[in-house]
């Protein structure tokens, strides 16, 4: 039986050729790259000015702060775009979520929140940081959604929007404050550690919230008196 989504065999053949050519090009590029130390030495020599001791965090939040600022903005943009599609709320499970799942979530969610805080703090000197912590918070949020509890559902839709934008807002505020003494995103060395922690804390909350609500898909209900707010 022919599969419903089959495309003509000529298209398949051309696609196979194109894929092999692109794959081959990547292989050629990987094999042909000269052996270099990359930017490892450059990062290592400037580590003492970064405010943290883990090189990946130093690159993410300080040396290449632009990338991370724009990345948090992309996440917020995806959330706004998804909400603006006005998807229907997820179908309710005809059977209530089982007892085991509900009790597991009750146990796991607090543990996940503590672990997220731990990873956030760890990011300064070991693998960890805002994105890993945010991913754990999002995992807690997805678990809550699975048992049909809306994460932070007691907050008003406006408060949810403020929390979702908090990461970008704090990041931008710090970047602009740093501009007063130098250039955008150039933190003063003595404050760098504290500023990075502030940015990462705000980003963790926003990332966790955004990912969990992207999983749900629908926009938090907006009360009539809140139109145009936030």
């Amino acid at each position: 039986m022919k599969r419903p989504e089959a495309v003509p065999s000529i298209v398949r053949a051309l696609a196979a050729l194109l894929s092999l050519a692109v794959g081959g090009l990547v292989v050629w590029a990987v094999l042909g790259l000269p052996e270099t130390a990359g930017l490892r030495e450059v990062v290592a020599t400037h580590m003492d000015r970064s405010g943290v001791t883990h090189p990946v965090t130093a690159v993410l939040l300080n040396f290449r702060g632009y990338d991370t600022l724009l990345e948090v903005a992309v996440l917020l943009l995806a959330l706004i775009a998804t909400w603006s599609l006005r998807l229907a709320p997820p179908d309710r499970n005809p059977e209530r979520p089982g007892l085991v799942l509900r009790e597991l979530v009750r146990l796991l969610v607090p543990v996940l929140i503590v672990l997220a805080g731990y990873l956030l703090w760890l990011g300064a000197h070991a693998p960890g940081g805002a994105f890993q912590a945010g991913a754990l918070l999002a995992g807690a949020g997805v678990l809550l959604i699975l048992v049909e509890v809306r994460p932070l559902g007691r907050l008003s839709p406006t408060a949810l929007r403020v929390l979702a934008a908090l990461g970008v807002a704090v990041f931008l505020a710090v970047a602009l404050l740093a501009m007063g003494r130098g250039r955008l995103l150039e933190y003063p060395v003595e404050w760098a550690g504290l500023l990075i922690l502030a940015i990462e804390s705000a980003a963790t909350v926003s990332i966790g919230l955004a990912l969990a609500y992207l999983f749900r898909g629908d926009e938090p209900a907006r009360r009539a008196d809140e139109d145009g707010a936030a």
Partner: protein
Amino acid sequence: MSAALAYGLAGAGLIAIGLYALIVRRHLLRKILAVNVVGNGVFLVLVALAQRSGVPDPVPQAMVLTGIVVAVSATALALALAVRVRDATGRATLDLPGDAAMGRGARRDGAR
């Protein structure tokens, strides 16, 4: 052959597989998955190249971490758009109504 090189070549393989599936699969969910396979191939190549001399280079690692978040955001938006397309057209493909192949597909798997 070093382990880093093996990962790099595996990344190239993922890029090729994902690209093929992106072209030949009609269903939007499969296309979104295919884009993710390509993206993970790129990440694998980057991480492998950062690892070649034994001690990892933090810059490509940070780039991949950034890339993962962007890929997740784009995937979530793509999935939401796919749901919207299905709600609006009753189909989970981008075929035009006049497309003969679409007609075959629509008969076979009903409303979706």
